[in-house]
């Protein structure tokens, strides 16, 4: 299992068999550097699991993180050989802005997205 504790500007990251979870605020000053910390572990975890769920519950994020999230989705779509991968995009009740952000990622990538209001 891989885990990064959340800070006041970066989300908690959990990687375990079958599950990747990102939750919290995602506004690192250097988003590529932050995302590189778990990149390899995530790819290895997906490729070694029969099915995989990527669970996101983000409070808010900056544009650098937005681009890194998109790159992450593209990488999974293009390079990961596990066909049983899905993204679960969760958001606070009534938060259409966050839901639309997830829908935009889904439009650009070809990954299956599920939306969950909590």
């Amino acid at each position, binding site marked *: 299992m891989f885990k990064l504790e959340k800070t*006041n*500007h970066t989300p908690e990251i959990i990687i375990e068999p079958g599950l990747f979870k990102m939750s919290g*605020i995602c*506004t*690192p*000053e*250097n*988003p*590529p*550097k932050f995302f590189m910390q778990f990149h390899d572990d995530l790819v290895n975890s997906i490729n070694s699991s029969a099915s995989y769920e990527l669970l996101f519950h983000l*409070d*808010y*994020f*900056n*544009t*650098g993180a*937005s*681009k*890194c999230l*998109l*790159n992450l989705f593209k990488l999974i779509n293009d390079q990961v050989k596990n066909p049983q991968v899905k993204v679960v995009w969760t958001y*606070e*009740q*009534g*938060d*259409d*802005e*966050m839901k639309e952000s997830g829908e*935009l990622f889904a*439009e*650009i990538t070809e990954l299956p997205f599920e939306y969950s209001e909590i």
Partner: protein
Amino acid sequence: MIIQNNQLSSLLTKIAEKEAVTDFLVTLHGHFNQDVVMATVKLIEDKCVELNYSSSLTTRIKMVSVEILQNISKHQHLSDEVLPYFVMGTIPNGVSIYSGNMVTNAAKNLISDRLTVYSGFDRDQLKSFYRDSLKNTHISETGNAGIGLLDIVYRSNQQVEFSFHDYNSELYYFGLNVSIKNNK
């Protein structure tokens, strides 16, 4: 207007007169860093809860605010004589953000060109351009995706005004006003 380091109160008076701001939620003037940015967004979030703003409006306000604040934080080193500011006040159905910071001549031209293009789009064109830009832009090693201004315009539903004031032969003071209302 350029805000010298003892003129924040006059700025607040001008904003209140111009836009009928009923309450100032945040006023910052000075040096910005990541801790200041995050503490400010947390304060903004708490104020949005107090005001019973919807979660959707609150998210838009936080995302626009962090983009403006982090941008100021990255580029504030251009002058120690005139420091940046960030002010947020309530207006009917939302908030209005005023910020000011020094930029170079090259940045002035880039900002002006981009904001002029973005303001000419209708809503569908803007959404399409935003999606294509997010898809095609490259992020630098330092984390600059180059779509911060576009994100601000998109999430504010094009409620953006800007101005530049000459400071010296190389620097300009960039004034930005963004309104975020509950009617996207």
